[in-house]
């Protein structure tokens, strides 16, 4: 039972029920047709109904909330659990606004046969899109139930109370939601007003409710698509070419088909796979098949050592995304710097996996893709069947952090499933498949200039950023890896830049700071030397790294403390709060005397300039001999609007800090002139426990009643900048080429003996 019954105001009920016939005037936008448009943009206030989230595209209330006559309540979301805790947060929102016990709710996540099409679970959008939709839908459903109960009980709606999934009159008479609901009651479009609860009355939102998915995950329960074992399951593996550009010339399939347990070798052009009864026999067969396969041709890859030069030379489409009267050479001291980032991997711990089953009725795919609907459309195109013949059901996988191999392996499984009708085929990539063939986060270059006036203010600012696309997610068959190798191959659709205000390679390239003049130019590079796509935070990681480390150099040149320097140029009050809170909790001002070889650094960003505000302060030590950087104490503050689950937000920010530490100190995809040579964790090292910070402390600035801003990706850039700034502080050497790995730090220290390094 909800401990605090909620009194429904008459105005709320009237607004809710009186406007039932009015649907949102907004046209349905075409989620599925154009993935580029799939992420909602913009920021509006929540009242009056305002930021309807995904209700904009799916206004029917019963698409989100269903109440059965027996009282069972089901919440539907088109988003997917990726380990970010979204299931729990969405259930909290629904339980709060419906006034029902949290545990009584059932949640159905992304499934093309059952849920709304909410595009991708990406861009820290789940709370903004789905959370907002469920918030309003739940509040409106409750109002409808109250209005109906008022009629049945003969009591004015404003005298009724809700709680425990029932509506109760002052005289104690009560009707359960199941008793009130009728078949058509919730089959109405959302109204333009929602009678939301006063945040002061919240009992479920804003609380650290334990995640609903964790108990099964720590006890060996069925939690992942990798663990599903439907009846009749068989296993599939794919033999991928040694170089992305190689084509299969010949293979002795018969030799492999004779191996025990092998059901079939599937070859279609250069797509080569095997299906077997057991997983280990399947792997053995795949290895044998790999030995027997003869490939020809190869990709011509650029030189990894000079990838930044290659990027600058490729043709680009240039767009000024900001131009506020840049004058070129105003008075003052001029500074410039170039920042580079290599290709980096999602590198999920569990390689990508999917199960596909082809029956007479169509294809069903269990997938951990971030976009069930876009994947369905791409698979349908690849299989040349109508989209309604393909059903994609999201099941959790290992954390993905963007567009990893999830969609590709679903296509692998579907192609093998066609060859063994009725049998569910489970394909899990091998570690070397994942490392070599997932779409990477693009290599990038950013060049910044600034002019500092005599008073220590930045008076002119330019930022040029060069990058491939950060979005080759499905929608089309040509986005699926195996489709590129078929006898009748699909070609990748031409890459497009993700438009501002969210941006792709230029995400967060426009500074949030107030500079009188500035120009920011996005140099979008269509040619992709390596296959790339969305990696957590897209270009924001690199742009924030560049802006925030450049700022530190400028602050030093101006002789001003870096935190003070930031505040001097920041007007946004919520940004100022986050910066100040972080500095205060870290004890920034008092951290004046430090030992040799230690340094402290600060970084800040508002993700996408639209999402969560995050600042990070940390200290670290640099070992002069090895070049190893060890992060010590980390303090962060985050404002992601109204905090639905503080524990979940903290978990996300802690994770972002640790993951970004890994990217920043260790990670670069290795390749030679024809092949990817990062094939395992040995040649794509990531952070292990010896590099985990000594402590991470996250402060949440809660904004009750404010729109949800999303959290998942906001920590990546600020962490990278804080680390680089602390390394510069510790050594006196500014490193601008990611990652700041041991070799680079050692070389830099050797080149210029540091003043303060120990």
């Amino acid at each position: 039972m909800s401990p605090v019954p909620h009194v429904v105001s008459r105005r709320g009920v009237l607004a809710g029920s009186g406007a039932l016939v009015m649907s949102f005037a907004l046209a349905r936008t075409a989620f599925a047709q154009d993935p580029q448009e799939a992420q909602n943009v913009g920021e509006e206030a929540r009242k009056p109904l305002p930021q309807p989230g995904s209700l904009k595209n799916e206004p029917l209330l019963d698409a989100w909330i269903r109440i059965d006559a027996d009282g069972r309540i089901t919440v539907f979301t088109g988003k997917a659990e990726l380990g970010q805790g979204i299931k729990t947060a969405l259930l909290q929102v629904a339980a709060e606004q419906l006034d029902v016990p949290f545990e009584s709710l059932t949640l159905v996540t992304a499934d093309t046969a059952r849920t709304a099409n909410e595009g991708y679970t990406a861009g820290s959008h789940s709370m903004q899109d789905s959370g907002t939709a469920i918030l309003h839908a739940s509040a409106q459903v409750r109002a409808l139930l109250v209005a109906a109960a008022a009629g049945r009980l003969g009591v004015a709606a404003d005298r009724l109370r809700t709680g425990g999934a029932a509506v109760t009159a002052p005289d104690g008479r009560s009707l359960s939601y199941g008793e009130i609901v009728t078949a058509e009651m919730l089959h109405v479009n959302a109204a333009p007003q929602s009678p939301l609860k006063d945040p002061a009355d919240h009992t479920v939102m804003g609380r650290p409710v334990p995640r609903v998915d964790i108990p099964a995950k720590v006890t060996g329960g069925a939690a992942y698509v990798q663990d599903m074992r439907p009846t009749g399951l068989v296993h599939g593996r794919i033999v991928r070419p040694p170089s992305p550009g190689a084509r299969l010339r010949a293979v002795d399939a018969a030799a492999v088909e004779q191996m025990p347990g092998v059901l079939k070798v599937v070859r279609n052009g250069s797509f080569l796979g095997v299906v077997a009864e057991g997983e280990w026999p399947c792997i053995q067969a795949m290895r044998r098949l790999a030995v027997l396969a003869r490939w020809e041709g190869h990709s011509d890859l650029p030189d990894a050592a000079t990838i930044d030069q290659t990027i600058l030379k490729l043709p680009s489409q240039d767009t000024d995304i900001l131009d506020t009267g840049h004058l070129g050479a105003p008075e003052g001291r001029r500074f410039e710097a170039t920042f580079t980032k290599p290709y980096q991997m999602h590198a999920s711990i569990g390689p990508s996996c999917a199960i596909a089953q082809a029956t007479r009725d169509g294809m069903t795919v269990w997938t951990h893709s971030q976009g069930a609907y876009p994947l369905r459309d791409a698979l349908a195109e690849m299989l040349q069947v109508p989209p309604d013949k393909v059903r994609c059901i999201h099941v959790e996988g290992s954390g993905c952090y963007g567009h990893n191999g999830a969609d590709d392996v679903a296509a692998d499984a579907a192609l093998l499933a066609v060859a063994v009708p009725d049998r569910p085929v489970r394909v899990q990539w091998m570690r070397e498949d994942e490392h070599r063939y997932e779409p990477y986060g693009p290599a990038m270059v950013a060049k910044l200039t600034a002019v500092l006036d005599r008073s220590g203010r930045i008076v002119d600012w330019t930022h040029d950023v060069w990058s491939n696309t950060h979005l080759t997610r499905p929608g089309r068959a040509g986005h699926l890896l195996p489709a590129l190798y078929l006898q009748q191959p699909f070609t990748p659709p031409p890459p497009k830049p993700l438009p501002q205000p969210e941006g792709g390679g230029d995400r967060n390239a426009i500074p949030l700071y107030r500079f009188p003049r500035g120009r920011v130019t996005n140099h979008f590079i269509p040619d992709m030397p390596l296959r790339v796509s969305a990696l957590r935070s897209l270009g924001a990681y690199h742009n924030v790294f560049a802006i925030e480390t450049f700022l530190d150099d400028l602050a030093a040149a101006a002789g001003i403390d870096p935190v003070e320097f930031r505040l001097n140029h920041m007007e946004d009050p919520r940004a100022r709060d986050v910066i100040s809170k972080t500095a205060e909790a870290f004890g920034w001002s008092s951290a004046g005397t430090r030992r040799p070889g230690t340094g402290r650094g600060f970084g800040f960003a508002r993700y996408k300039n639209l999402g969560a505000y995050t600042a990070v302060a940390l200290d670290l030590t640099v070992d002069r001999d090895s070049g190893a950087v060890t992060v010590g104490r980390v303090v962060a503050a985050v404002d992601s609007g109204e905090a639905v689950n503080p524990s979940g937000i903290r978990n996300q920010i802690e994770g972002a800090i640790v993951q970004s530490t890994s990217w920043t100190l260790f990670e670069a995809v290795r390749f030679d002139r024809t092949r990817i040579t990062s094939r395992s964790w040995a040649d794509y090292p990531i952070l292990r426990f010896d590099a985990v910070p000594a402590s991470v402390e996250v402060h949440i600035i809660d904004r009750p009643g404010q729109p949800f801003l999303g959290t998942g990706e906001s920590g990546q850039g600020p962490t990278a900048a804080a680390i680089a700034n602390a390394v510069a502080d510790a050594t006196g050497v500014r490193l601008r080429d990611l990652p700041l790995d041991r070799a680079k730090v050692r070389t830099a220290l050797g080149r210029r003996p540091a003043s303060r390094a120990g």
Partner: protein
Amino acid sequence: MITLTINGTRHDVSSDPATPLLYVLRDELGLHGAKYGCGFGQCGACTVMVDGRAVYSCVTPVAALPGREIKTVEGLGTIDSPGPMQRAFMDEQAAQCGYCIPGMMMRAQALLEQNPAAGEQDIRDHLQANLCRCGTHMRILAAVQRAADLMRSAGDGGPSPVTTGAVR
């Protein structure tokens, strides 16, 4: 036919003796707690305990295991009656995607069974073999320390000893 003792129960398994334990657990016995991560002994997602020590089940053929005590995350407790290690991971909400977590728990369990007094640095050193990509490390450290406390207090039958330095 090979007989394996897993979580105290004997199982006759028909897989080829060269098959790594990981595939026998997951495929033949329906124990999915141990996960495939790399198959090279690099990530620890597949970690289980054999005679009290943490091993990579992805590179351990079942031929080597008859007569030895194998323990998996399913042997630490159940969803309704979680053991101290599982309880601690729930209490600390120590998972994001959670894929690495069973391996982390089994390696930590092996440590604590050998050294119940293990402190934070011991735990960090010991877990070096296991990777987590979500960056859940701080919570994993907190959970293992909490598990150590739970186990010690259960073992003593007395009050919970002073906790080791909190990580958060």
